[in-house]
């Protein structure tokens, strides 16, 4: 058992080392032309505006919350699934009660609309102004 986990750990470390090694190689090979514009924050060529702070929607939190609760449920479901073959009906009923209680929670957040993200409202397409349309047409003809 220790051998298996040690192997996994070595793999994790080697993955990191692989990136480090290549970063080192890259450091030797790469061209370096530092320029203040290069290291400014990228905003599609515009000058960066404001701080990179966005008021995130609280729904991100609710999704993470529902995920966490179900993740915890899953850590009980896995050992249950291992012994399910042997224990049969009894274990099945127990687990169904467990799952049902948690599905009530899912039903709650579902009914309260916590899982609905804001849908884009279907706005009728704005009428194109006459002059704009004409300009488009003439430009195409010209080119």
């Amino acid at each position, binding site marked *: 058992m220790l051998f298996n986990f040690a192997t*996994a750990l070595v793999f994790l470390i080697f993955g*990191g080392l692989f990136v480090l090694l290549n970063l080192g190689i890259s450091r030797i090979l790469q061209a370096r032309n530092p320029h203040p514009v290069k290291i400014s924050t990228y905003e599609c060529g515009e000058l960066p505006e404001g701080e*990179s702070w*966005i008021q995130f929607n609280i729904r991100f939190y609710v999704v993470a919350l529902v995920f966490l609760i179900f993740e915890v449920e899953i850590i009980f479901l896995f050992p249950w699934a*291992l012994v*399910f073959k042997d224990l049969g009906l009894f274990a*099945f009923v127990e687990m169904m009660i467990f799952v049902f209680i948690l599905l009530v929670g899912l039903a709650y957040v579902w009914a309260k609309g916590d899982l*609905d993200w804001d849908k884009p409202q279907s706005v009728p397409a704005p009428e194109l102004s006459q002059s704009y349309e004409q300009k488009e047409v003439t430009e195409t003809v010209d080119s």
Partner: protein
Amino acid sequence: MRELITTLANGQTFLANLPEVVLNIIFISLGAVVLTTVCAVLALVGVYMERKVSAHIQDRVGPMYVGGFHGWLQTAADALKLLLKEDIVPALADKKLHFFAPILVFGATLATFAVLPFGRHYVMSDMNIGILYILAISSLVVIGTILAGWASNNKWSLLGAMRSAAQVVSFEIPASLAILVIIMAVGSMNLGEIVNVQVGGIHKWLIWKFFPFNLLAFIIYFIATLAETNRAPFDLPEAESEIVAGFHTEYSGFKWAAFFLAEYANMFMVGVVGATLFLGGWSSPFGDFMNSGPFQIFWIFAKAFGLIFVQIWIRWTLPRVRVDQLMYTSWKVLTPFAFVAIIGVGFYMIL
């Protein structure tokens, strides 16, 4: 792997003189190096395949020039180019975390390769809770993504990272529940044992067992992993029309390549796990025919690349979904159906 080491230690080679601990360390490191290379090469193959398949789907030819035959060296040349590129770190970025995030993401991806069975004896770490380990270690990738987005100190990076994290965690639940169906049927979390019950031909594959519930579970698993690897039609975190390149907007050079390699390695990992759980893993679909030694590696690769091909095919067929549709798919379609599959299999097994 363990047996191999013991045989070598007991054999009449020069290796027999070394203590077992040293042998273990040598072999684990060797395996790690080999699989790191395999992982990188697989990512390159995956990128090449994506380009070629997408090109043919769109009725063009894709890269044709580099390396002669159908541009097969194109991705290798791209990798070389990425090594030569300047590594730009934004002035406002958190330098330490900016550096650390790609390492974490690639390391976590490679760590999942340790337990993947490429054949009856070709598995580095035959862990008894292998599949749970994969689920656990994959969550490090999410953390790496959030850290990368935050460390870049860029609006789009952060928004992309949050989107990516929310998406991955939402789809992790249906994926885990679909995997659970297999564990119920086999009674083991060891990937090797899961394959062992499927040896003997295509009719023994677990996807056909408990029809139609395992098939349903496979479909759920496939869709969920599609979203977990940020593939189209669920590639919102990288929706270039909305948020530039998502969480790796501020990454360049090899740090960016690390994310890219990790993404394709993840695709491959997901394909191998899907093939192992549902499609017989390394076993041949024709019973004993071509089921020995190296053929096992061929079969697992063929199945995994088959799944990757379907992923690419879907990417170039379907348009991107909206965020609300994404959440709808995960919580209101896949999760309830995954529970239906579990309950259905439970009934099958009791009756």
